[in-house]
């Protein structure tokens, strides 16, 4: 189908975009368009005004600061995939980005667009949560920062008003993650994940897991941390018997349920995935320790 009629706006600066948002009726921001345009084409959504963020250069930059890597909201998934800086500083993001859609959609799809759409199975919100990112949001009252766990409000619902826009995503560099892992189960390559699991880990001097983050996407309405498992592992050495005892009873989350992947199946996949990423992240920690 074809989209309903709308007026097209092309602001050149962030403040111009915010000004447009504050006075336009029924307006929507257009980032990479890889989700919004299908919704418009199918007339699932219709807006009177489309505000295209594609002509604001400062939204497409990646900046390394002392304590964070700041990625502009309009940085494309392709830029992330090919950035040597992202690969060096955020290997988990660099790896997970290859699971986002297809190469042809990553060429236009953006980090900010995916984060604001908040599909339950999307890789970018999951990785941002795992890496404890925060989001810089600009609005009519100035700019504010929100930690990602607050930003993720509900399914497909970020905690952001219709007059605001995400300027950048800040990934903290102060954590000493020396192991990471990501896995995803989908029906076909490039499909939405049924379940995706991400993990970062820091190993202490005696081989114990000093700190870790383990999070699941696709399992429930929003990506979330598996905190009970984190707590059961923190401070301990990871081995088969510890893993076996933690995962003895499997998962029983109130998981999403559809005809392709019923709730019990998502729980089973998540359990398998979590075991795998924990083992893989721990292995990476070990080989990192041997290097230094």
């Amino acid at each position: 189908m074809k989209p309903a009629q709308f007026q097209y706006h092309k602001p050149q600066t962030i403040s111009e975009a915010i000004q447009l948002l504050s006075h336009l009726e029924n307006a929507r921001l257009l980032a990479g368009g890889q989700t919004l345009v299908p919704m418009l084409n199918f007339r699932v959504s219709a807006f009177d005004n489309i505000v295209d963020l594609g002509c604001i250069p400062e939204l497409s930059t990646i900046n390394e600061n002392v304590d964070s890597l700041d990625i502009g909201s309009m940085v494309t998934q392709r830029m992330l995939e090919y950035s040597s800086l992202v690969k060096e500083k955020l290997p988990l993001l660099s790896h997970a980005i290859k699971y986002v859609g297809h190469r042809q959609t990553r060429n236009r799809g953006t980090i900010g667009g995916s984060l604001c759409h908040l599909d339950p199975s999307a890789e970018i919100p999951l990785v941002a949560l795992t890496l404890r990112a925060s989001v810089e949001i600009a609005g009519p009252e100035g700019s504010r920062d929100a930690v990602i766990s607050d930003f993720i409000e509900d399914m497909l619902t970020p905690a952001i008003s219709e007059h605001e826009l995400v300027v950048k995503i800040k990934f903290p560099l102060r954590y000493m993650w020396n192991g990471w892992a990501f896995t995803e189960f989908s029906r076909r390559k490039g499909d939405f994940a049924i379940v995706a699991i991400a993990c970062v880990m820091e190993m202490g001097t005696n081989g114990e897991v000093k700190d870790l983050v383990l999070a699941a996407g696709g399992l429930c309405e929003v990506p979330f941390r598996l905190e009970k498992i984190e707590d059961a592992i923190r401070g301990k050495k990871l081995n088969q018997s510890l893993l076996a005892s933690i995962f003895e009873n499997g998962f029983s989350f109130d998981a999403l349920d559809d005809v392709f992947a019923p709730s019990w199946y998502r729980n089973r996949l998540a359990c398998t995935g979590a075991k795998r990423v924990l083992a893989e992240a721990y292995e990476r920690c070990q080989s990192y320790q041997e290097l230094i």
Partner: protein
Amino acid sequence: MTDQSEQISITATFNGKEMTAGASARTTLVDFLRHKLDLTGTHVGCEHGVCGACTVLVDGLAVRSCLMFAVQAVGRQIVTVEGLSSANQDLTDIQKAFWERHGLQCGFCTAGILMSLEEYFSTEGNSYSEDEIKDVLSGHLCRCTGYQNIVRAALDIVSDRTLK
């Protein structure tokens, strides 16, 4: 407030030539190419970015022209399947490989696949691999399911270009 069906003048470089035509804001790039510029080699399939039939190059990158509005193409370099080799020229090596390997059946998906491979073979240096080719092709649906010959055609290009 202007009329929403207002025609916006769109000027961009299409297959090396600067062209201008009018379209309403809601016109997707693929509809603009086909209906305003008569470049009907690019096909419309699913209109939600899944099938890959409408893939064109925008500033050298393979993108879905059904997921982009024509107004977003202003000032950019667009290459469609017609831009690969013009009427009196030889086919490109990618096109020849498809011919020789019978890398198409009905041909509906072919224009998009050629554009994705054009991008892949022009940006990846010499590190081509079968896995990567399959990854690139995974962004395209061939409903005749002629994937084996499409992969064979692409692998021919790898061996040809690596030998050179």
